[in-house]
């Protein structure tokens, strides 16, 4: 059969066209669902109350409030069978904790499994395999499904099982909790000591400085900050603060000088 136009071609191959449309539609829907779940927006959870769930730490079961009532608490989620980001994330987190110091003294860390089939033995083995320092007194814990979903809801953590791999898709998240409230949420597989320090400082009630960094779209700034050394130096924008002085001096002297000139002429 001769195909005369694009329309004829589409009609002839309509079953393929419909199939392609379905595939595109569902894959877009799938992608959108994943994109919606990926970022954890800190703003939606700050200062929200965290449920006082019961966790199993091996030797005994304790409430989270037993921990946050004594020291600020960092809570993070992993699972023992993870072949994805859990290992590099925990290693990076451990390095940041080592650089920062003070774990157990200034703050506590709970590493909670979000796989309810996990047990403490598997978690310990996993953390050892991931290279977590044995010196750091991390609190490894599991909890039941109901409590897990309550704490996930309060901290914005989520996971989704992939049918093809059997693995969970999930973010790397640290929730900073103080006196039963979320005070900070840190996300990302790479944990820098500086960012972690900000979370701990915030939890301890200290003032955490923030200042927008350099941007190409700002013409005048009071200071420029060297991102490597962190040192700041005066920038051209600072001179703008002298504009009012200059304007005042010039206009005042102009007015009185003109008066003097007129006076001399008369």
């Amino acid at each position, binding site marked *: 059969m001769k195909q005369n136009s694009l329309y004829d071609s589409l009609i002839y191959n309509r079953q393929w066209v419909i199939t392609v449309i379905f595939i595109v539609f569902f894959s877009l829907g799938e992608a959108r669902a994943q994109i919606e779940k990926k970022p954890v927006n800190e703003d939606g959870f700050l200062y929200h109350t965290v449920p006082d769930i019961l966790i199993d730490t091996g030797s005994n079961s304790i409430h989270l409030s037993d921990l946050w009532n004594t020291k600020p608490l960092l809570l993070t989620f992993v699972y023992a069978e993870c072949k994805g980001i859990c290992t590099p994330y925990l290693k990076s987190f451990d390095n940041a904790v080592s650089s920062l110091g003070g774990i157990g003294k200034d703050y506590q860390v709970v590493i909670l499994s979000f796989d309810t089939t996990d047990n403490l033995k598997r978690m310990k083995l996993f953390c050892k395999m991931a290279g977590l320092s044995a010196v750091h007194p991390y609190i490894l814990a599991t909890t039941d499904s109901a409590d897990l979903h309550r704490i996930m809801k309060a901290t914005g953590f989520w996971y989704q099982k992939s049918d093809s791999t059997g693995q969970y898709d999930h973010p790397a998240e640290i929730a900073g909790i103080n006196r039963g409230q979320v005070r900070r949420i840190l996300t990302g597989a790479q944990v820098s000591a500086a960012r972690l320090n900000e979370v701990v400082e915030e939890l301890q009630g200290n003032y955490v400085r923030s200042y927008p960094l350099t941007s190409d779209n700002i013409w005048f700034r*009071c200071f420029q900050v060297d991102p490597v050394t962190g040192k700041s130096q005066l920038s051209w924008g600072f001179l703008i603060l002298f504009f009012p002085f200059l304007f005042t001096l010039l*206009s005042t002297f102009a007015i009185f000088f003109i008066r003097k000139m007129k006076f001399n002429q008369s």
Partner: protein
Amino acid sequence: MENNAKNPLSKITLIWILVSVLLFIILIMLAIFMRSVQSNMLQGMQGDFYPSMTLHGIGMVGLWYVASMAIVVYISYRYLRPSRGVQYFSLICTLIGVVMLFVSTLSGKFASGWYFLYPLPLHGTWPSWSTQLFLSAITILGIGWLVWNLDYLRAIAKRYKLGNALGWHYIRGKTEPEVPPFITITTVSTIACLACLASAVALLIFFYFEMFFGIRNDTLLMKNLTFFFGHLIVNLSMYLGVAVVYEILPEFTDRSWKNNKMVAIAWNFVLIVVIFAYFHHLYMDFAQPLWMQYAGQIASYTSSLPAAIMSIFGGLALVYRSKMKWNLTSSFLFLGLMGWAIGGVAAVIDSTVAVNERFHNTLWVPAHFHTYMLMGLSMMVLGYFYHFVHNLIGKEEKLSLSFIISALYLVGGYGIVGMFYVAGAGSIPRRYATYNWGNIMSGTLDAQIGLLFTFLLLIAILLYFVELFRKWIQAFKLS
């Protein structure tokens, strides 16, 4: 008694008086609304709290600046010849600006607070047109006031040399030519006001660049410019009010308040240092260099103390054992000086770094600025308004009514600021629509008591207005 009818600025001054007092009453109504919301008496109207707060703040700052400037220009006619056309130009710019501010806040819900600190105006929940209207209003007001100041400075320059106007010859030990302290203080204020308005110009240009061309701004630079403008305009308004007291209070004591070496030194010191005092608004900005923070505290102390001490001791010496004629005008001028001193002390306390760490953004801040504005500058200006209309029609004040108004104003005013001080000392934060949770709940009770005092003040102002307006009509016909 001076014949005010011969002064060609009488009519425009009368218009300024009417506009100022009416605006004052409207802005007090907004204060009552805000305190009612904080008292939990107007449930569900919290959303209107912040636009009202913005209009109340910018309105009061602008109102007392134009009111004090208007009477300074009027009084200056004794020595100078400021342009009458410029007075009308300033009045028209002010009226247009005020209408725009009302629309942008009450209709457009612009609610960034009176000093529109960057970047809040560009990131609010209100429509962008209200931000544009608000900034346009500030631009029009700024143009009108800049021309006003330049003309006043021109009028000074026509009669005095710069050094003489600033009283430098007194500092050198000479006594001639005789320059009234009124001229020295207003010269200092006008020159400093040029800097203040230039800062506002730079600020607005940066805002417009971001709004129309997307060029972002440096928050620290914008904050410096904002407080350069905001801090100065409030201080300069008070200095203009104090200049009026220097000029008018002696008329009630039959003594003169002359310029001398100490007065000249004090006010020249103000000119040099007051510009740097605004640094104390940036104590919480860690990126500000440390030397500027130190300079802020030093300038806050040194800019306020010499002028305040000279003025307060001068005022007390003037009144002490004199045959003072007490009426509403003289009481308000004298008590206004006292309110300026009390509010100034509270402000200096807050400008101390160690104290500011605790008091920053608590109700201590509105406590001190309401003291020197409401119980200081407002009293000076309202006192002079009363004097002006009575003088113009050649009638004496009703002393019984004057006593009632003064008593209600004092009790109401100090009650209002007293509740702010109590709340501020208790760390109750400012700019909160309600205080219904945690350890700030006592703020609700403070607001409720404060509200009662605000009603007393409103009664005082309404009585004042009724009496003033009756005389105002007669004066307007005569002028």
